[in-house]
């Protein structure tokens, strides 16, 4: 699993609790969503991951 995930990119967005939202599986990930202050990666934008399989995870901590 770790080997496989090494091909993927762990990209974690820290977000506060939100209401459930409609499914978007099977649709393109919006290109106009803005992400800033990338850390622990040389990437500066989501476009830097173009052509890769990306694993994104949204979670909050408390």
């Amino acid at each position, binding site marked *: *699993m770790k080997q*496989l*995930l090494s*091909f*993927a*990119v*762990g*990209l*974690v*967005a*820290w*977000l*506060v*609790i*939100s*209401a*459930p*939202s*409609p*499914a*978007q*599986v*099977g*649709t*393109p*990930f*919006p*290109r106009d*969503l*803005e*992400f*800033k*202050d*990338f*850390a*622990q*990666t*040389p*990437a*500066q934008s*989501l*476009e*830097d*991951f*173009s*052509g*890769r*399989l*990306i*694993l*994104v*995870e*949204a*979670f*909050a*901590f408390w």
Partner: protein
Amino acid sequence: MTGESKSETEAWIEDKGAEYAYTYAANMDGFMRAIDAGGYPSSALIDASGMVVWSGHPSSLTNQLIEEHLVGALRKPLFEWPKSAAKIAKSVRSGDLGGAIREAKAYAEKGGELGAELLADLQASLTSRLEFLNQRFEAGDFFTVLERGESLLPTLEEGEPRARLQKHLEHIATDTAAQNCLEGQRAWRKLVGKGPLRKVKDCDKRIEDLKKLSEKYTGTFAAEEIERQIGLARATKTKLLER
């Protein structure tokens, strides 16, 4: 965008020894919608062509799913490519895979660093995308074929793969049944695109509207998708009732 401050987040990362890349979403609602996040933690896979191919709880992500979608993905991220391959990277960023392959061929012929590897990756990526579209077409998922095929087509050189994709697109544009299915696929997306479900009554309304669509487009791939949306709306309603 976060309820936590950046300094608190960084402190948390350090405390946990987390080593993965992270970033901050400027548009929280949009991001949550884009990955179908209904709570925390939520995760999603975005494939090499930029499509959200899976979403759910991180614990439900399987090796098989990752393996399936690794096919056609670049082995090396763009930020690790040599600077001399900047033109190829630019084409990849803009989604012009055909252009990237043409650039990579010229680059490899000149003996550019990693030229053969980059070219092989890009060609594999193109092949897998075409195979994926062929599979979606056979499944009746005309929305995806149209959505992704139209942008891919101009990047393809003349040949069988291009001709096949063009044939698919022409079928979707002219076949009555395909048009009907496509209409249903667009209809449910428009419906769920109205925004997140924040109240139980919104869920009830959404479920009711989706049921009508499901009946209208029964027997099509759109109806299968709509049934899944009904399930999601019901799950959301359950979560809201539990709060």
